[in-house]
């Protein structure tokens, strides 16, 4: 943006008085800016929440793997020991542990109910593997397992992690798209309001041209009026949006992000940028509308 566009916002009380102070466009601009800023805060929160969840899912799932050993009971202990031996010598693994019967029972509880006789069921042994650094080479580990523990299967979660991460990424994109659409709607509505105000004040503009006002002076007066109104409306709308978000119930779990739209950390700063962005959109929209109207005057 050119510096002259910003300089035009400098207060000029005399020039500001040339634009009649009343009109329905005042209320229209304030209401539009406030409403869209309110929605923008929610879109921001959605975008940041999905981004947060995508990162959490991606990080958490990418760093853990599971080895399932479905060996006959008489070979189970030997294959578990073989797998443990392989894991101890595999680079890129920080820790691993065999899940206890109690932990396996807890995993099955949602499907089979409490008090499962885990010893009586042909349940495979499960080993949780946590990666270190850049992680391990999954294909190499699979080949070693196949050779030394043929009933062991490595599940690095790729199959079901990827769709979840993609879904979260899609939601993040949706949030950004919402912000973009809200920005476009803001610009369109303020352009319409500015055009209506300019049309309603056509006689004022004609008089100003006749007494020697330059286009930049006339456009500047309207740009200041609409930018200030839009900034005021957006401030009120953004503040209301932040208050509404703080009042939403939050569960603080990654799986239930749709009910946890609150901001976190530096995310709380982002709504502060909504009013300035709306003001800049209003400035550009009014400048465009004023240029079109003034071009038609001698």
């Amino acid at each position, binding site marked *: 943006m050119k510096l002259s566009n910003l300089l035009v916002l400098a207060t000029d009380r*005399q*020039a500001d*008085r*040339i634009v*009649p*102070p009343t009109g329905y466009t005042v209320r229209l601009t304030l209401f539009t800016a406030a409403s869209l800023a309110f929605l923008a805060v929610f879109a921001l929160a959605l975008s940041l929440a999905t981004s947060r969840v995508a990162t959490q899912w991606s990080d958490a799932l990418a760093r853990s793997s599971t080895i399932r050993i479905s060996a006959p009971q008489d070979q189970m202990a030997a294959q578990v020991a073989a797998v443990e031996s392989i894991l101890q010598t595999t680079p890129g693994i920080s820790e691993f542990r065999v899940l206890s019967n109690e932990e396996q029972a807890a995993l099955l509880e949602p499907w089979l109910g409490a008090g499962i006789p885990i010893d009586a069921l042909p349940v495979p042994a499960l080993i949780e593997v946590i990666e270190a650094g850049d992680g391990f080479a999954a294909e190499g580990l699979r080949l070693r397992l196949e050779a030394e523990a043929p009933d062991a299967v490595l599940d690095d979660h790729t199959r079901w992690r990827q769709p979840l991460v993609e879904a979260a990424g899609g939601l993040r994109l949706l949030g950004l798209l919402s912000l973009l659409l809200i920005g476009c709607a803001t610009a369109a509505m303020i352009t319409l309001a500015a055009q209506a105000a300019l049309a309603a004040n056509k*006689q*004022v503009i*004609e*008089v*100003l*041209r*006749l*007494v*020697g*006002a*330059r*286009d*930049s*002076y006339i456009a500047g007066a309207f740009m200041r009026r609409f930018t200030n109104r839009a900034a005021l409306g957006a401030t009120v709308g953004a503040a209301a949006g932040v208050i509404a978000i703080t009042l939403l119930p939050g569960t603080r779990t990654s799986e239930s992000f749709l009910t946890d739209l609150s901001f976190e950390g530096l995310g709380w700063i982002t709504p502060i940028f909504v009013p300035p962005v709306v003001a800049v959109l209003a400035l550009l929209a009014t400048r465009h509308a004023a240029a079109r109207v003034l071009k038609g005057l*001698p």
Partner: protein
Amino acid sequence: MIELDNVAYSYGNGPALLSDVSLKLAPGSFHFLTGPSGAGKTTLLKLCYKDLQPTLGHVRFFGVDGPELSRDAVASLRLKIGVVHQDCQFLDHLSVAENIALPLTVSGRPISASDLDDLLGWVGLSDQAMQYPQELSGGERQRAALARAVMTAPDIILADEPTGNVDWDMSLRLLSLLVELNKMGKTVLIATHDLSLIRASKSQVSTRVLRITGGRLTLAGADL
């Protein structure tokens, strides 16, 4: 100062309202422009302050051809040409004083309170300075319009039917103000269909009377 050279003008695709009009407004001259209603007096005045572009011919402003002037240059030009419209054209949300000072406000020039007071006193509107245009009588509005037209000390005053909505006494008062401006060296062009006003001016100032008939501009004879 303003020179029209074989100018023609028509609105849209209609017939020519003005044809082959040539006119030179010399510094310090006083012109009346007369003719029946609809003859093209206002159109000619609009050509003189570049509110209209001629269909044919050239209009030169202070030696510069009209089309060569940028939009900013036109704005500057209008600070050198004071215009008094028949309907005055005020900003109704501003006071009389603010309307009179408008040319200075929009051009970013400083407004001297004493100069503004003097000007208000000159047109007899000192007591109406803080009123709004809609609170003024017809004569007061015309005087306020005249005050606004001379606020920037322009070289040329163009007045379109300045006495159209006022009584005879007020007409004479406005005429005397315009004559006073001419004696200060300003070029004056008044468009009017009021021949008695032209006759009344003859004892006060040397004038040139132009008549528009059939779209042509001619010098009026002794029949006035």
